[in-house]
């Protein structure tokens, strides 16, 4: 897509539920030569545009793999950006003829889908895990790494994007109310946007509710706020009647329920309420650990500390993305369900998650 960036942002954020593919293949950034760095990413239009902006002023090769137009993290976890896609990009794009080295920098969040060892073995390229955010790449390339670069956060801009991602489709859905007459549409759309922005921008304030998986708590909190807000608006507009409060409070509650549907999964910090493995613990088998440190490199939540062996001092932060399990060269890490059942590493590598958070075997 060659849309101007603000328009691209608006389109791909309002309709983030849909894939937005851009052309896969090799592209030059700046004036790259035979020893310039190689960056691999998926083909979600917004990601590619952002990566190009982040690399402005640098010289490098941008290798766009086929992730079906889905962003790197969702694609990697969902089986749409796989080891095969990385190998394919490296072997079919002609990059091997453009550089003399064989090192490729991957976004850290691809680690749940692309096995570095397999890329080395089957394509002959060494994978270097870059930072979570492409904007940290210039500093990363200068050797100025810091642990924060390897962790996801949920900063105000991301929260704004999630609010837009929900409010835009819900606003379109609100068009259905035109069958009841035109008067209610604008207030309903205003309600949708107000609640979406409130829910996402205020996230840090009620985050403990989400961390404890308290769906009921969240709905009670925001449902109550919607009701109170409705009463306030009613009073200010001089229309504070019971039918008014019930109708608009009810609509507000409906919007809150829709937002709550995947609130946890819409943050990078917690798994969706429906995710089958959300209560799984990552377990280390210390006898297999060789302290290579890959788990610490790829974990987006800073769970690991590696000295003579890996340890999980912040295991409570884990959100079961599986990256550590996928990358461990000795299969020392695995998922353990609350009942004690274990998910073997090969299962996590081969069978990826569907939209409801279940591992797809057929």
């Amino acid at each position: 897509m060659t849309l101007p960036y603000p328009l691209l942002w608006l389109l791909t954020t309002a309709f983030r539920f849909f894939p937005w593919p851009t052309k896969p293949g090799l592209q030059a950034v700046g004036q790259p030569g035979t020893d310039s760095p190689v960056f691999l990413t998926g083909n979600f239009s917004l990601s590619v545009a952002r990566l190009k902006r982040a690399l402005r002023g640098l010289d490098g090769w941008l290798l766009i793999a086929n992730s079906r137009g889905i962003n790197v993290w969702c694609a990697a976890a969902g089986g749409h950006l796989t080891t095969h896609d990385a190998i394919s990009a490296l072997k079919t794009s002609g990059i091997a003829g453009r550089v003399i080295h064989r090192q490729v920098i991957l976004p850290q969040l691809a680690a749940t889908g692309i096995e570095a060892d397999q890329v080395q073995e089957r394509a002959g390229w060494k994978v270097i895990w870059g930072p979570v955010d492409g904007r940290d790449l210039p500093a990363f390339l200068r050797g100025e790494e810091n642990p924060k670069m390897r962790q996801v956060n949920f900063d105000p801009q991301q929260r704004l994007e999630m609010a837009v991602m929900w409010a835009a489709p819900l606003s379109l859905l609100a068009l259905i109310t035109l069958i009841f007459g035109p008067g209610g549409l604008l207030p309903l759309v205003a309600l949708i946007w107000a609640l979406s922005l409130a829910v996402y921008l205020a996230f840090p304030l009620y985050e403990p509710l989400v961390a404890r998986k308290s769906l009921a708590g969240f709905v009670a909190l925001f449902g109550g706020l919607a009701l109170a807000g409705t009463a306030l608006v009613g009073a200010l507009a001089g229309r504070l009647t019971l039918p008014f409060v019930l109708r608009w409070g009810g609509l507000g509650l409906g919007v809150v329920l829709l937002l709550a549907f995947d609130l946890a999964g819409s943050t990078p910090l917690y798994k969706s309420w429906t995710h089958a493995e959300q209560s799984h613990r990552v377990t280390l088998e210390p006898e297999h650990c060789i302290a290579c440190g890959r788990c610490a490199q790829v974990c987006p939540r800073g769970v690991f500390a590696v000295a003579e062996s890996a340890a999980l001092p912040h295991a409570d932060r884990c959100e079961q993305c599986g990256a550590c399990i996928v990358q461990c060269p000795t299969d020392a890490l695995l998922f353990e369900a609350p009942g004690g059942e274990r998910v073997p590493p090969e299962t996590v590598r081969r069978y990826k998650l569907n939209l409801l958070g279940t591992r797809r075997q057929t």
Partner: protein
Amino acid sequence: MRLLESAPSRYDGGIRLLTLGQAERAYDRLTAHIEPGWRVLDLGTGTGALALRAAARGAEVVALDVNPAMLTVARQKAEIAGIAGRITWQEMGVAELDALPNGNFDAICSGLCFSELTPDERRYALRQARRLLRPAGLLLLADKVRPRQPWKRLLIAVLRAPLAAVTWLLTQTTAHAVPDLPGLVEAAGFEVLEPRVGLLGSWAEVVARCPKKE
């Protein structure tokens, strides 16, 4: 649209609906060219439609796909049909074809796979196909294609939209289109024998012969 995830177990039904049965008829026509005892390679076998037909005609088949869940469904179907012994399944993509030896196959078939590949992958796959086929070996392809005329593309998009939506909702299956499959095959040096284009130019079947090696 990828609102839900692809579901390999619903793939066959989805493709039957989406192509109105055309895909299965095309696979029957293509595999009619396969002789008993032939070594056949099926690229992007998915749930094994072409591999199973080739094996049923007495061929020894190597069937590849990148999706382990698809291969699981394919294996089950082969077991039920009693021809599992003739088919070797491998989790492999077209970019990894260089692992297979030269000139070993009598035929290479591929259905609704090229439309899932990137342009780089398609060219790579066809180069590999020339290497992997014996002289005068056959390339058998079936896929959705994009008609050349814009008015046809628009018409197909409009006609297709309701069917695509229903198929997606019921089976989470969808399909894409290759810009010019016969042209691509010719450009790779194959001799195209029977190009067959149907459904308003939105579907192509290509039977092509690998040139004799120099």
